[in-house]
């Protein structure tokens, strides 16, 4: 299949454009936090993971130390390792491709690839979203970092509000069932309680510890035969866009996705220990 005829490539491209534009906000906020232009560019070129990058500059902007910024960034990057494990089984990259795939393993490329049923489409979706986001994210980071000085205070343009909205947008599709929403609430409260007590950046680690303990001791959420695919929002990866207009045209023609999801729901509903699955696919 040619790239321009591929539905997965189209989704990957649109996600790359949407995320790339957001790089403008990162570039502007990064220089406003006190980092230099080249420090900002190194974050986008080498660290390349939106959540980790915003965590890094968030700690710096709040007056935290470099080591605290590094800690928050590294912790938020852990999920990329989980994505890597999943993508490795889906894409089976070999040789240099494995090292390239690792660099563009982020929320957007993972979401695009795992949203496909066909292996070829998984490949096209992953690479178009990953490489496309990398290129645009870096171009817009540079533009934001340069314009940042000219724009003045990014707060005036609501760019800090954009960051809040983006994180809520990534969280949103994961908290449609009751239990994930409750976990999110507990972690949010833990964060609020920790903010006045510990240095900036550490509240995120406190919430991560709480979340990890809940996951460790939580029972029955995931049947042994279907790890991570219960469809209750607890799976490691989900389309972070909650955008049916994007997600459905893909799933509809293949047929297999809905069939699988139907089986998962049936399993979930017959297993008494599994929490109620509500509105996972509205």
């Amino acid at each position, binding site marked *: 299949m040619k790239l321009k005829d591929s539905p997965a490539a189209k989704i990957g491209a649109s996600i790359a454009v*949407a995320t790339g534009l957001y790089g403008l906000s990162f570039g502007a906020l990064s220089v406003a936090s006190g980092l230099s232009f080249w420090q900002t560019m190194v*974050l986008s070129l*080498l660290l*390349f*993971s939106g959540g980790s990058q915003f965590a*890094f500059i968030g700690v*710096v902007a*709040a007056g935290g130390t*470099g*080591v605290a*910024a*590094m800690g928050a960034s*590294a912790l*938020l*990057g852990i*999920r*990329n*390792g*989980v994505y*890597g494990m999943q*993508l*490795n089984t889906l894409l089976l990259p070999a040789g240099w491709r494995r090292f390239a795939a*690792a*660099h563009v*393993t982020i929320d957007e490329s993972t979401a695009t690839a795992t949203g496909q049923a066909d292996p070829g489409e998984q490949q096209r979706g992953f690479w178009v979203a990953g490489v496309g986001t990398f290129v645009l994210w870096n171009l817009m980071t540079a533009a934001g970092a340069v314009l940042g000085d000219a724009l003045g205070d990014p*707060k005036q343009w*609501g760019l800090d*509000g*954009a960051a*809040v*909205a*983006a*994180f809520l*947008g990534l*969280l949103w599709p994961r908290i449609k069932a009751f239990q*994930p929403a409750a*976990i*999110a609430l507990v*972690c949010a409260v833990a*964060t*609020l309680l920790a*903010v*006045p007590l510990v240095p900036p950046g550490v*509240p995120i680690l406190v*919430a991560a510890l709480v*979340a*990890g303990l*809940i*996951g*460790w001791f939580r029972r029955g*959420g995931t*049947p042994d035969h279907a*790890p*991570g695919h219960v469809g209750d*929002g607890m799976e*490691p990866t989900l389309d972070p*866009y909650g*955008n049916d*207009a994007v997600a459905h045209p893909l799933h509809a023609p293949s047929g297999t996705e809905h069939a699988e999801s139907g089986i998962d729901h049936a399993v979930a509903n017959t297993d008494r220990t599994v929490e109620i699955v509500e509105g996972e696919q*509205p």
Partner: protein
Amino acid sequence: MSMWFWLLVAAVLSYLTKLLGYLVPAKVLANPRMSRVAGTLTIGLLASLTVVNAAASGTSLVLDARIGALVAAAIALWFKAPFLVVVLVGALAAAGLRLLGWP
């Protein structure tokens, strides 16, 4: 200089974390307990990050225009707005509230 050092450490750790995922045998992910931890950890991190960005300023909690951005983004998400629209709504809400005089 210290900032450059930790910045580069963060970049190296980020890449190694990603690469490590590709080097781990698939069996590890098949462990249901690790799968649950990965799921709850992601939710916890995103929830914490949302709250920190909305209400934290250093070591104090503040109610400023970012709370307006949070509410506006939630409304946009409720009406199934695409990701980019949600981000724009958040920016517009914060900028608009500041124009009206809210910090």
